[in-house]
């Protein structure tokens, strides 16, 4: 059985100021549609750009190349994506994916 091809319910959270790129909404309940290839974090980034990002011309405040821009930490279920395969991580149903902008003020 290929669970990856079914649609997935996930939450995407944008914190530490990143929410300003997403209409100031921090938590987004998202349904990722059924696809032929499994949903990875890499594909999710593109999906977010196309579907959640409000001002497309501000895309470089979120993405750089095929990954997030420097200064953004991505966590899946409160674990750094570096522990899980980075953009290659295969998203599972009910995953909580958090995007954190690193702060430097004080």
């Amino acid at each position, binding site marked *: 059985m290929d669970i990856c091809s079914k649609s997935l319910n996930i939450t995407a959270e944008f*914190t*530490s*100021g990143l929410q300003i790129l997403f209409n100031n909404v*921090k938590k987004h309940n998202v349904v990722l549609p059924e696809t032929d290839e499994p949903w990875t974090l890499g594909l999710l980034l593109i999906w977010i750009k196309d579907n959640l990002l409000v001002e497309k011309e501000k895309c470089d*405040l979120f993405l750089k190349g095929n990954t997030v*821009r*420097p*200064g*953004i*930490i991505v*966590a899946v279920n*409160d*674990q*750094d994506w*570096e*522990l899980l395969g980075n953009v290659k991580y295969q998203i599972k149903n009910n995953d909580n994916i*958090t995007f*954190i*902008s*690193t*702060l*430097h*003020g*004080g």
Partner: protein
Amino acid sequence: MSSSCLVNNEDTFNDEEISRLSLEIELLKQELNKKTELLKTKQKKCLTKLDVSRYSRQIILPEIGIEGQKKLKNASVLIIGVGGLGCPSSMYLASAGVGTIGLVDYDEVELNNLHRQLLHGQCNVGMRKVESGKLSLSRMNEDVNIVVHDVQLDGYNSLDIFKQYDVIIDASDNLVTRYIINDTCVKAGKPLVSGSAIHCDGQLTVYNYKGSVCFRCLHPKPQSPETIGNCASAGVLGPVPGVIGVLQAMETIKIIIDHPNVLYNSLLLYDGGDCNFKKIKLTNVKRAGCLCTRSTEDIVITMDYEEFCGSKANDKFKTLNLLNEDERITVIDLNKLISQNQPCLVIDVRKNVEYDMCHLPFSVNIQLNDLKREKTLLELIKQINSYSKTPNVITICRRGNDSQRAVKELKKYPQITKKVNWIKDVIGGLNEWSMKIDKTFPMY
């Protein structure tokens, strides 16, 4: 004759006695200094009765005990930045009886610091931050040795300072300094308690502790300057750095007493708006090729950090030059135009909330971002048409960067440029107005 001889003899006798006494006193002074030093070293190794009473409420905790309190007394902590984070962390550490606290800051206390930097009183505005900090901390606990380092930290002076301390607290306010602090901690082998805060959000983690990752492992490439907010432009609510600074003091105490659950390989997020804490598990594997994987002597910390980051080692304002000289006017020009009743439409392009804080009575408020909106443009054209003579359009903002962007934006629309004499911005903005024209106009 005989009497004068007697005086002479007495004088000689007096001189001899004076020098003998001076020498004796000098020796006694040396003896006293020696014994005072000895007493201090002895007292440092054990706790005095006064120490036990003073710190009893924390000594009672099994995590601290007499041993833990002795460790605190012998410990030295360096705090970089005596601001929103450095004030609360140093207050709690001094009050907990940490023996030596070093303060690094190059700046002076400003009025707009006081809402969050609670070591500095309003009578200390204009004073060096390290001096003001030392005064307040000594008042809280005279037994703590406060060492001031009134310097702008760089890769050349950092190592000698860091070497004198056991734990380093990053309470700085900019990316450049954060890289310098990280690299120096890695080279000197010191644990780094890192905190940051802006707006309603705070972050906390401990780097370079018990083989954990360093700041560079997480951030091998510096983020670009336009993605970084600072307290001066984005704002910050006082309790937010307060919360993070206090947590930095907590993690520092835990490191000193060798507590098993120090926050390393984890990142704590604080969202003050939602009153939410979240802990993210970070990788515990150092990034391949990272500075922290090299041997100490191969770690070079004298790179040009400002060039590396593309920004400055402070959170001060950077002036842009987007327009030609003939596209700009000074505040003196503006004052003249207004007093001569010249037809001028002065557009203040700051955020609504800033306009509400203070504005020039003859200005209207259109936020820079709104200038692109069709509805705003139509209203603006209507306003321009309402002048009996062809008006000039002048844009103004806080310090003269966004007003330049506004001129560029307005000049895109021929329906505006055709109806006005010229469109220019005000150099230095409202801050300059406050300095040159009206000293009562608030600077923020």
